[in-house]
């Protein structure tokens, strides 16, 4: 059994008229099925409005399926009894670094999740220090959150999720609002967390980030268009265009230069050019 199982997931948002009566509904997700194995690194890509953020919010029960089911380690997200257990196992990091920090002091914010879980104070302290070291922000632990850059705030948000010791972290476009330096540091942390065994689900619209994943899930207007490795996905230019996506710059350059299709990273590309 896979760690997260999404079965025939349908999610509808109702539209209301001025009197508050539902008049119509819009399908954000339409029959999506997929499995996410423990320890894997899955990227979810798609155009705006393809339903990728909605899918992310379904994975930890922030949104509940209209039809179909989402189970985490055998527990259904629709089951009220397990919802806190699910959320403590599937952490989440959002897009806007400003709007997800609760406390003005860095370490107090990281402690927020473990405090909600009712963990002993000494253990919380250990976890917070650990999490801050992991994201390289330990020396900023008693600083004010408003003094930090966007990338640093996002690292604090990641530490907040890590401190809950989840099995999986869902990143909902974590780099979309960051500058290139912040984006790089956040991606490095994500890869490191994955190498330590944490399952990563990365929602992104940067194709070069999707290249880092083991598997890429492509959504279009709420439907699953493809579910394959980055290598297979970006070998199929037709499919990439159909999904409304762009080729990652590395692949684009590789193909224009007519180089070998097995080249997937900048370093490999440079090596191939030098030879």
């Amino acid at each position, binding site marked *: 059994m896979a760690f997260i199982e999404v079965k025939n997931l349908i999610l509808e948002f109702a539209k209301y008229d001025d009197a508050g009566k539902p008049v119509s509904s819009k399908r954000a997700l339409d029959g999506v099925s997929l499995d996410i194995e423990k320890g894997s690194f899955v990227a979810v890509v798609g155009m705006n409005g393809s339903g990728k953020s909605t899918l992310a*919010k379904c994975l*930890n029960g*922030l949104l509940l399926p209209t039809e179909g089911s989402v189970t985490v380690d055998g527990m259904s997200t629709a089951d009220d009894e397990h919802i*806190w257990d699910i*959320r*403590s196992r599937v*952490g*989440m990091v*959002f897009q*806007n670094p*400003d*709007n*997800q*920090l*609760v*406390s*003005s*002091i860095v*370490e*107090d914010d990281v*402690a*927020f*999740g*473990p*405090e*909600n*879980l*009712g*963990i*002993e*104070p000494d253990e*919380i*302290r250990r976890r*917070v220090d650990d999490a801050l070291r992991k994201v390289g922000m330990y020396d900023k632990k008693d600083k*004010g*959150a*408003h003094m930090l850059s966007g990338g640093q705030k996002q690292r604090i*948000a990641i530490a*907040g*999720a890590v401190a*809950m010791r989840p099995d999986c972290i869902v990143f909902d476009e974590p780099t979309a609002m960051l500058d290139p330096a912040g984006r790089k540091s956040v991606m490095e942390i994500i890869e490191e967390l994955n190498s330590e065994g944490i399952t990563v689900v990365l929602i992104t619209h940067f194709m070069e980030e999707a290249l880092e994943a083991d598997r890429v899930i492509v959504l279009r207007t709420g439907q699953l268009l493809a579910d394959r490795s980055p290598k297979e996905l970006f070998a199929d230019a037709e499919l990439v265009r159909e999904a409304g996506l762009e080729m990652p710059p590395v692949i684009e350059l590789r193909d224009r230069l007519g180089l070998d299709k097995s080249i997937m990273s900048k370093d490999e590309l440079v090596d191939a050019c030098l030879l």
Partner: protein
Amino acid sequence: MIRDITLGQYYPGSSAVHRLDARTKIIATLIYIVALFVVKNFWGFLIAGAALFAVIEVSKVPVKFIFRGLTAVFMIIAFTFLINLFMVDGRVLWQWKFLSITEEGVNRAFFMAVRLVLLIIGSSLMTLTTKPIELTDGLEKLMKPFSKIGVPSHEIALMMTIALRFIPTLMEETDKIIKAQQARGADFESGNLIRRAKALIPILIPLFISSFRIAQDLALAMEARCYHGGSGRTRMNQIRFHRGDAIAALLVIVFLVAIVLSRFINVPI
């Protein structure tokens, strides 16, 4: 402009006053405020002023910094002073048409002004020496007994924490909106008061909307981090009373006794 107000600001330090438990400081400040209203003559204010000055000295907060906070409320003090000066009946010292100053009025005006100044300095000293987060923690702990009768102590404390957290964010947001409006030719600086107040509407409405958006984002993030109210929640920082708090409590009692005794001094100052 908002940055000039010292009331509610924190002055970082590690003095004995800074290290006191937030609860001790909150209670001491409350007793101090009550004491100011118990005072009947200037002897009492002399004691209160001396005590306040001693605490300021120990806290190592620069006096200049504290007085800067007073300038923000100068108008209130001046207004109170003038109202009392002209409105109290008694032995007339000076008269011009319907305006008259009486001996009692002068006395009362100074009395009220001194009371206000001591009140403001005293309460700002608490916020100057206590981290906002410790203050909200302390309040939560102090209000805990009242949660039995339905006071949402945890919710109030969390609301204060979030409000403090989002002050800088909303200020940035305001700045962004103002710049965006100015870029499109909005004029906030000319015209009379009413006109300028009207010019604020196009700032306030987008700010209002964006604060709702921020609130929604934050609520989602909190839910994702397993927030489900105050029950079953633990805290990383345990606040405990130390020896310093006992000493402070003792000094507060001595102070309160001195203030009460000062009511019986009949010698005019």
